[in-house]
Each structure stands twice: as structure tokens, then as C-alpha cells.
């Protein structure tokens, strides 16, 4: 095993340990999936010839390409899905904030100001700053 492979393995191992420690007691199923994927990755880092052999089986020249192609496709898809979710969440947040604003809209009335000598909307501090 060369230096680069050792560093990668250390990184994978470090990430797994870090995630188990910081998420302790939470998201155990997600952590198990992550650990399984990382163990698979560590295997191919430690034994790159196995990845190449698998790649040859399906007609791909190099082991790294065998792993890289599906990984890039998956990442692009994940990126688009995440963007879409953020977009939809932002729209929902906007509608919520807008509903609050529309509900609390206040009119500055000429009659009320003239009749009472002051703006009734200022009758208490909360309506003056209309915190919602």
C-alpha cells in the first residue's frame, strides 16, 4: 500500500469515527449505511487491483473509472435534488412570510387620525412595530 492510499484510508477511518462520535445516539441507521459505504470504499483503496478486475468484467478499462462514473452520476443527481428541495422550501417559506405580512397589514386612516388626534395603530408598542 502506497502513501496516498494510507492517507485516504486514514481519512475514511477518521470520518467514520468522527461521525459516530458526534452523532452518538442519533441517526444510527444512517451512520450504519455510511459506514458500510466507507468500508466498501476502503476495500477498493486498499486493493485497487480488485476494482480493476471488476471494471474489466463490465468492459471499463480502469478500476477508478468503474467507481468514478456512477459516483459522478449520483452526485449530479443528488445536487439537482437538493437544489430542487431548497427551491421548494424557499417558496414555502416565502408564502408563509407573505401570509403573515398580509394578515398583519395596517392602514393609515385619515378619519381616525383626525377624530382622535392620534393614530390608533400606535395604541400599544407591539402594533407600532407590528412584530409578527
Amino acid at each position, binding site marked *: 500500500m502506497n502513501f496516498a492510499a494510507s492517507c485516504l484510508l486514514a481519512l475514511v477511518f477518521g470520518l467514520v469515527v468522527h461521525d459516530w462520535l458526534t452523532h452518538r445516539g442519533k441517526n444510527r441507521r444512517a451512520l450504519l449505511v455510511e459506514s458500510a459505504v466507507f468500508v466498501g470504499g476502503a476495500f477498493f483503496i486498499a486493493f485497487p487491483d480488485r476494482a480493476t478486475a471488476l471494471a474489466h468484467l463490465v468492459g471499463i478499462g480502469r478500476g477508478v473509472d468503474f467507481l468514478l462514473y456512477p459516483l459522478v452520476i449520483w452526485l449530479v443527481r443528488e445536487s439537482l435534488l437538493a*437544489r430542487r428541495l431548497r*427551491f421548494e422550501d424557499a*417558496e414555502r417559506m416565502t408564502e408563509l*412570510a*407573505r401570509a403573515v405580512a398580509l394578515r398583519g*397589514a*395596517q*392602514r393609515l386612516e385619515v378619519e381616525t387620525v383626525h377624530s382622535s388626534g392620534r393614530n390608533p*395603530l400606535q395604541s400599544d408598542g407591539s402594533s407600532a412595530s407590528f412584530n*409578527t
Partner: protein
Amino acid sequence: MLRDVSVAVLMPAYDEAVTLTRTLASLASVAASTGGVTVFLVDDGSRLPVQMTSLPEPTPTFTVILARHPINLGQGAALETARRLALREPAFSAYVTMDADGQHQACDAMALAQAVIGGADVVFGDRSRGDSNVPPFRAVLLFFAGIFERVLTGLPLSDAHNGLRAFSRRGLEAISIRQNRMAHATEIKRLVSEARFLSVVELPVSVRYSRETLSKGQRGSGAADILRDLALQYLFGESR
């Protein structure tokens, strides 16, 4: 000319304390010669919320309806809130969108409203033909933005991203804004273009830049944000 005409002004505001007061005061002064001006003011989550006491006193021809976003969403979102506020009121003769930072003139707003009374559905302001003091860098940016918008919308308009516009009621009903930030200006043109049945004109207006408006206005880097927002809406905006 506008004696019997009621005008709704849709105005987003974010941290515009001083300029907002001046802008509203200028609208109140021209309102006396109209059938009434109602400002639909949307405070877009300003750090210091707009206070009712800071607004000009209402008169028989001038009033303000104030709504406040609990968080800052962006100018497009605030404009859409103002649009919905205005549409739930009885019909006005004309609806004008106007910035609160003092760079738009109340008399220009009334001139655009007059064009709507004259039969136009949508009136866009053109700062290049008015008495504007556009800084050179901003002029270059607007030139390219204009080309981009012409290609995108097919509308042969001279100016781009000018917040001073006027609409008839059916014009306003046709533009449901989904772009929260600055891309709404391009989106409005696209919606107007797609509506097809709307008559569109462009009139000269004066846009006066000051240090204040330039510090808060759109920057060159904002162009990239606008392109990103337009691309995201193109990709994901069909779902609603």
C-alpha cells in the same frame, strides 16, 4: 389631468428609513392633484422596522397600507406581497411600482399612471431618455442586461431593471412574481411578454442616483445572482 384617477403605488422597502419618508412625502404632495394615491408599502423585514409614526399623515387623497415581512425575502417577494395587497382592494385606475430609495420621481410615477389611463396595460420607465444620472459602469451593465432581456422576452424595450412601471388592473393580474430577489425585474417582462394580450409602452423617466442608492442598489456581481435565480426557476419553477 389625474383629478378623478385613483392610483395605487406598490413600494417595497428595506432599511430605507430616511429616503422612504422623503419618497412618501413627494407622493403625498402630488396626490392632492389626483383622485387619490394609496401606497401599498411592504417593509421587507428591515432591521429597524418601518414605524407608522414615521409615515406622512394621511390626507383625503393620500393613504398608506403597510405590511411587514417577518424576515427579509428580497425586493421581488416584497413587490409580490404589495401586488396581492393591492389586488384585494377595490380596483384602482392604475398601479405603479416604485422604489423607496428616492431614485424615482413622484411626477414620473403619475406620468406612467396617466399612460395607463390612456389605454396601456403595462408602462415601463426608460431612464436613458429621461433626466437620469446613470454612472458609467451601471450604464454598461444595463446595456448588456437590456440585450439579455430582449433575447429572453422578445420585448423591444430600451431599459432594463427599472423599478418604475405602471399597470392596468388586468396587467397587474397577469404578473404573479415568483422571483424573490432582483431577477423579478426580468421575470415581470417575461410574464408580460407571455401574456400577449397586454399593450406595452415605454416612457422616459428620470432616475437620480445618489451615494445612498448606489450603495444599496444592484452591483455587477448581482448579475451572476440574477442569472442563477433565473436558471433555478427555469429548472424547478414548473412544479407549482
